């Protein structure tokens, strides 16, 4: 049998047919910055978001529990009185800053939050050229995100690479999605 195998190159042909099978199979490459982008699952722990309620009021009441719970002490909260109805109560955050260099994205802040104001979002492109963007201020945390919270995630979505003066932005198109494998 083994001599038969050797004469007719059986193992060699098996190997070739295996590689041919892989050649015609779909590739697993994600064409990440150019055409595709990974939209993470909802459980993903990326850049934090500060949420608003249905009326558009800030949910954060500046109780500072997140800052207390933070193991790396990267959250700075300065509360202030407010009677204009910006927040859900008369106490809102004057300063809400997360030092992203120190943050280890453990998610303890969202566990500690009594009003579900702070949630881990799904932005993961946090690299930048200066340390300025390493501190996420309140404005940035409140801004709406490209992947909304309701989006299911766990897909590769089509995306468009945009270059401008500030840097590179990869804009996802959430309607065109596909499973990675």
């Amino acid at each position, binding site marked *: 049998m083994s001599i038969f195998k050797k004469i007719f*190159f059986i193992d*060699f042909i098996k*190997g*070739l047919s*295996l*590689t*041919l099978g*892989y*050649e*015609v*199979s779909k*590739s*697993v*490459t994600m*064409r990440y910055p*150019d055409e595709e982008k990974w939209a993470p699952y909802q459980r993903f722990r990326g850049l934090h978001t500060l949420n608003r309620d249905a009326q558009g009021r800030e949910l954060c009441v500046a109780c500072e529990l997140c800052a207390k719970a933070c193991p790396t002490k990267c959250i700075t909260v300065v509360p202030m009185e407010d009677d204009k109805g910006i927040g859900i109560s008369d106490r809102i955050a004057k300063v809400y800053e997360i030092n992203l260099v120190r943050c280890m994205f453990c998610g303890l802040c969202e566990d500690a939050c009594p009003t579900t104001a702070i949630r881990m979002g799904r932005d993961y492109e946090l690299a930048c050229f200066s340390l300025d963007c390493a501190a996420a201020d309140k404005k940035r945390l409140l801004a709406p995100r490209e992947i909304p919270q309701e989006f299911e995630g766990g897909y590769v979505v089509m995306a468009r690479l945009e270059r401008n003066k500030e840097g590179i932005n990869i804009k996802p198109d959430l309607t065109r999605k596909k499973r990675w494998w």
Partner: protein
Amino acid sequence: MDINTLIEVALIIVKVIFVSLILFTLPIPLTWIERKVAGHIQVRLGPFRVGPHGILQPVADMIKLMFKEDIAPEKADKWLFRFAPLFAMIPAFAVYAAIPFGDKITIPIINKEVTLYISDMNVGILYILAVGGISVYGIILGGWASNSKYALLGGIRSSAQMISYEIALTFSCIGVVMTSNSLSLLDIVKFQSGTILGFIPNWNIIYQPIGFVIFFIAALAEINRIPFDLPEDEGSLAAGYHVEYSAMKFSFFMLTEYVAMVTASVLAVILFFGGWDAPLFMPEIPIFWFVAKVGFFIYLFMWIRFTLPRYRYDQLMSIGWKILLPLSLLNILITGLFLL
């Protein structure tokens, strides 16, 4: 000198220029195809960013190679180092003087019959094997002149490999020469036209299966493709004989390698697969079938490259001397018995 001779000479010059141009530009699509094949076999995409599906990647690579610094090591033998790529390249191109790409075609407008080969040598196969064998000098000289131990080892390996596999390669061709009774490639192809039993193409692969297997394995070793690419073994010799080369000199070596691969495919097609003979009642289109078959063989070489691991050096030698050489002699013997 009359006008007809002048036209003939002009025609040959045009053909030579045309063939050289094609050979010079051939590595551009071939590198792209090779990288694509590699990518898809490894479940990747291969080059994708320069041009649609990365099709301009080899052009970008070429521009990069042109503008790279041309480095010669301080203690290298400068002259040999400079001329080694040419020594490798010229024989690889010279081989094509004897290779027929088709029979005759009539050019429509000037209504003149043109042969699709530069010359029909009556010792074509001998010429190709002999001139193709010279190509190894470039590799040896390049390895020697670099004054680097890796390059030298690559050169030495290359010479040993060439010597052992050249014999098996030549012997496997002898079987074909015996059946078709000619050394001319044109006659060999003409001998293979027609069919057996009405539908099987009358190709030499039917009569010479062992010969073809030996030829194919020996050709893989001759052109330094992967199961036998010991001269440029990345794992143990970094890059073998072209370790010290950069820029255009390096690209000449790469060009040689690709041209040699095309030569091996062309030879396999002419000797064993009927040249431009159309298979299975397909219509005869000039050059098309020839190019299609050669393309298949080039693809096969790439396919094998990304399937098989590299042989060890002692395995390479024992395959060459202990298996291929006796087998090729046996093949000649069997062919001779059948011819009697």
